[in-house]
């Protein structure tokens, strides 16, 4: 009897211990976020203190106002959103069209072409980066929205992801539509796309996140301040206000917030995208 009780106490305390460990670790992982957010509300006099102080005296939004006047963050935001929405919408269209061709149409060399598509995912971006820049330069598109948008308008990953989903959709519905005289494009738009919403949502979220967070491409193709995206603007902001952490953290919060909000509401799609890309082997 005494032994049983002992085991029970041991089991419960082990469970408690496990919770303490993992929650402590979670706190450690999110502490940079908390630190960023709290710093962004602090006065400069509260930032340069040692030992560091977690909570600000009062939450003031001055830093945000200062950051938005010190650099045209509003404009950066506008640029980032235009580019991210355009690329996301574009990829949803081009990828679902290409995926439809690979999943449903029969033509010679289809499988080889599909493997070549998959193979392009293995090419490191720095190999294609230099000639892509040249192509845009020859087109006269450097420092325009075209340079930020057009190269992202197709995606092997997106095509693959949608194709994997499309092939699981039963064909019966399409057959009926074809008999009623529907064209292939109508079948894609009216039947496949409505059924593939979860896959499209996953692709949309992944693309949006990737484009909104992109830095190197904007760094290469943008020269003028009015074409800068949030990430590029923030990096340049860093060079200008090296240690003004109140402004820099306010800027960081603005650069992180939209993605965190999207993530909060659509977490399952993020997880799904990661596991899908992980299972492509």
């Amino acid at each position: 009897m005494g032994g049983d009780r002992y085991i029970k106490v041991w089991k419960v305390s082990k469970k408690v211990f496990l919770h303490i460990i993992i929650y402590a670790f979670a706190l450690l992982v999110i502490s940079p976020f908390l630190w960023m957010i709290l710093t962004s509300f602090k006065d400069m006099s509260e930032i340069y203190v040692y030992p560091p102080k977690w909570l600000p005296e009062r939450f003031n939004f001055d830093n945000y106002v200062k950051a938005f006047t010190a650099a045209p963050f509003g404009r950066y935001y506008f640029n980032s959103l235009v580019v991210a929405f355009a690329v996301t919408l574009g990829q949803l269209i081009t990828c679902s069209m290409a995926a439809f061709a690979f999943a449903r149409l029969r033509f010679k060399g289809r499988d080889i072409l599909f493997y070549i598509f998959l193979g392009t995912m293995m090419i490191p971006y720095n190999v294609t980066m230099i000639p892509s820049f040249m192509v845009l330069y020859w087109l006269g598109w450097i420092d325009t929205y075209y340079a930020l948008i057009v190269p992202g308008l197709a995606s092997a990953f997106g095509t693959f992801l949608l194709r994997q989903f499309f092939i699981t959709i039963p064909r019966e519905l399409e057959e009926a539509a074809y008999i009623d005289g529907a064209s292939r494009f109508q079948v894609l738009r009216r039947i496949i796309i409505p059924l593939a919403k979860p896959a499209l949502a996953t692709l949309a979220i992944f693309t949006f996140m990737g484009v909104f967070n992109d830095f190197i491409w904007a760094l290469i193709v943008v020269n003028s301040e009015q074409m800068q995206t949030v990430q590029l603007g923030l990096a340049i902001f860093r060079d200008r206000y090296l240690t003004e952490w109140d402004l820099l953290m306010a800027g960081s919060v603005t650069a992180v917030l939209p993605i965190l909000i999207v993530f909060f509401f659509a977490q399952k799609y993020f997880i799904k995208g990661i596991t899908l890309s992980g299972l492509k082997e």
Partner: protein
Amino acid sequence: MILTDSSKKKSPKRKTGSFRKGDLGSAFLFLSPTLVIFSAFILFPVFFSFYLSFQKWNMFSGDATFVGLDNYARMFQSAEFWQVLKNTAIYSIGTIPINMALSLWVAYLLNKKLAGKKFLRTAFFAPVIISPVAAALIWRWMYDPNFGLVNFCVEMLGFNPVNWLNEPTAAMFALIIMSVWKTFGINMVLFSAGLQGIPDSYYEAAELDGAGKFAKFWHITIPMLAPTTFFIMIMSMISSFQVFDLVYVLTSGGPLGSTKVLVFYVYEYAFKFFEMGYASAISYFLFALLFLLTMFQIKFMKSKVYGAA
């Protein structure tokens, strides 16, 4: 199964109609937007940068001149190149094992019965989704030598404060820690999926045989996760050899070039000095290196992981 069944039931009208001729025309239409973009920004660049790697050209003035293997020779003779390659290797070798051990540990714990799992998963995954620029900026502040949180913790633990971003060894260490924080969530999700794929019956059978916790982990979990682990290793290697944003914002390659990595080196030569030929040669070297390392790992793992089964 569904697919083969339904294809048999194809209506006779379509069999005799468009299908027999093949769908080449419409396939071309459906694929054309993607093909246009890919030709301009992937296919042409892959071949053209290979061509460029044998040229000397700044792209703005004059024509490219053929220089044979000069770019590659210059690369292998450059002390800076070897330094950069070494930095990249140190970064990868430092990041990948810590990252994998940590993500496996967290995934393992999350696979148990826990309260508030959803919150925990969100917390661990949050660093993955934020922009590398903002992440590196937060960590620059955390690493501040005088007022940063990291040195505060270091001193609480009884050590001397470190000038994180201004000392070569410390800067690389700082970069690795930040990078693990930023990316372990991806591998955690992948390991979680792998762990959920292991049938409970395996563990139950082992328990009947009297296997302890450690034995179960060692003899069931680890071997069953081998394909996932293998996949994560390859993907981690590919991405860590291409790190750029985090380095650019955290250290800009410094101090004294101690954190300058390959892509940063390519970026400098291509878009600061406009030596497109030399930059292309470096990027092709990186391409070849990653290809060989991946092939080597696949070969090695095939004999280890799948050969044993």
